């Protein structure tokens, strides 16, 4: 029997993966998340626990999983005001490392680790098809993105270092969109008050949540250890997306948005539009997903961009 440990199991994407996997026979799923899971599936053991070495060790020693699907970013909330950002980042990185070390110690055979296309950064001189070996420039301008870049480096180092022992797939997907996904970009697309720039119109790539969960499950098959971008060959201008979702969306000049985001973060919802997202709304950060397609020739994206946006709209 295959035993799969899924982190971030309360998240929308994890729930879709669990739903598909739980239908299969001879698979036992163990999930961990500090949040309470809204959904409960048969054949799934949930742990509502904080991400810490002790929690992970308890699960690893009790269930002895052979596969990990690491979907959540290990984050520690700033509950104590004396904790500085640097300290929290340090804690997040250490806990991620502990998780990976335990996976190695307990003889995991397959690991799927979720990173993001955000690691490449949104820069004016980005090539249109960022490949997996492009430099990770996200944190050059925004320190908030340092964490995802550092964690990505951790994943890739770990994957190559242990490639003889563990088959690892590091995924860098483009914007994952769907009813169950509550990420910043989905909130931004849906929001009527979140504006677009009149003077910039970057290109976006979208992947449907169901396509993403199917792809994660496909990656459980033995594909070569490596880092893979996940994106269909579709490039949609931001204004087209906003027009379809919110025909009466707000358009403003780019220089004014920095001020608006600061006001928004102080008054309405804190994370409606994080500061770093401004660059992603000005410059394209589009990726080349052809390497993964070569590894998974039978896989294809079922949803095109119009269907994805219609789904989000409804």
């Amino acid at each position: 029997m295959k035993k799969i440990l899924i982190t971030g199991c309360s998240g929308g994407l994890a729930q879709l993966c669990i739903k598909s996997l739980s239908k299969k026979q001879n698979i036992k799923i163990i999930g961990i998340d500090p949040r309470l899971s809204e959904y409960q599936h048969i054949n799934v053991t949930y742990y509502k626990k904080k991400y810490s070495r002790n929690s992970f060790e308890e699960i690893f020693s009790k269930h002895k999983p052979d596969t990990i699907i690491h979907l959540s970013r290990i984050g520690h909330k700033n509950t104590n005001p004396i904790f500085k950002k640097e300290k929290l980042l340090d804690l997040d990185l250490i806990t991620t490392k502990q998780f990976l070390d335990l996976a190695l110690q307990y003889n995991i055979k397959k690991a799927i680790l979720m990173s993001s296309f955000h690691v490449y950064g949104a820069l004016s001189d980005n090539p249109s098809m960022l490949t997996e070996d492009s430099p990770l420039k996200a944190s050059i301008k925004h320190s908030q993105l340092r964490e995802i870049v550092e964690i990505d480096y951790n994943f890739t180092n770990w994957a190559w270092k242990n490639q003889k022992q563990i088959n690892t797939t590091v995924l860098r997907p483009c914007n994952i969109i769907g009813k169950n996904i509550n990420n910043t970009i989905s909130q931004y697309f849906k929001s009527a008050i979140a504006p677009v720039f009149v003077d910039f119109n970057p290109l976006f790539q979208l992947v449907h949540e169901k396509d993403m969960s199917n792809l994660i499950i496909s990656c459980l098959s033995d594909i070569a250890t490596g880092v893979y971008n996940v994106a269909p060959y579709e490039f949609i201008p931001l204004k087209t997306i906003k027009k379809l979702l919110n025909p009466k969306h707000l358009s403003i000049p780019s220089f004014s948005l920095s001020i608006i985001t600061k006001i928004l973060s102080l008054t309405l919802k804190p994370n409606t539009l994080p500061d770093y997202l401004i660059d992603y709304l000005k410059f394209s950060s589009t990726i080349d997903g052809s390497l993964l397609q070569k590894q998974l020739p039978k896989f294809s994206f079922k949803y095109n961009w119009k269907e994805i946006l219609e789904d989000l709209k409804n």
Partner: protein
Amino acid sequence: MKKKFSILHKQFSKHTDPWGLDLSILETAYKYLLPIYNNYFKVRCFGINNIKPNQKYLFVSNHSGQIALDGVFISMALVKELKKPILVRSLVDRFVPEIPWIGQWMNSVGAVVGNRNNCLDILKRNQSALIFPEGTKGLAKSSTDYYQLKNFTQGFAKIASISKVKIIPVALVGAEEIFPFVYQNKSLNKFLNIPTLPISPFYLPLPSPVDIYFGKAYTVDSLKINLNKDVKNLKNIIQSMINKGLKKRRSFYFTYKQK
């Protein structure tokens, strides 16, 4: 032009474009620019027969005219003059996408940020690219340097070598005099951290007649590592095309006289 664009629509409608090309915006732009191209700048093309149908090329041209109208002229010529139009992707300097409105408009009409990966991707997709190997230095010349080519970067020869694509040398004559008296203060540009700041008594483009010369296709050996000789050859070819063109050019009040 409608017929030409119906061909281009068929060619480009299969996928969304990775660089943000919007053919409807390009068609509208050409609709308004064509009378200016025909009647104001009176653009003439020579050597268009050197461009064979159904082939992709790397067009390499001299840069001139302070505001990159040369890219517009060449792109329009390749749509207007050819039976089977070529929508050439102009590679623009890295600062262009940062300019509000201009950056997004340039992407919509087919321009692409000039880096090697983008150019290789364009050629991989069977499209043609237009490169100005002098870069901004070629564009932002003082009047005293008009029609003298600046140093060529090597990137275009490497790209042609990797992609096994033929290079069409292009010489543009007449575009320099669109702004006839210009002084570029390099120290001031450096101090202000901007690539170009033309100081001129005229800021309205003058109707200098423009001639475009398309040379014979040049092949770069795909096995070569050192491409200095090819770069030098192409620079000489384009310079001699410019010199010949200057002798044949139509008269204009501010015609530049070659030293």
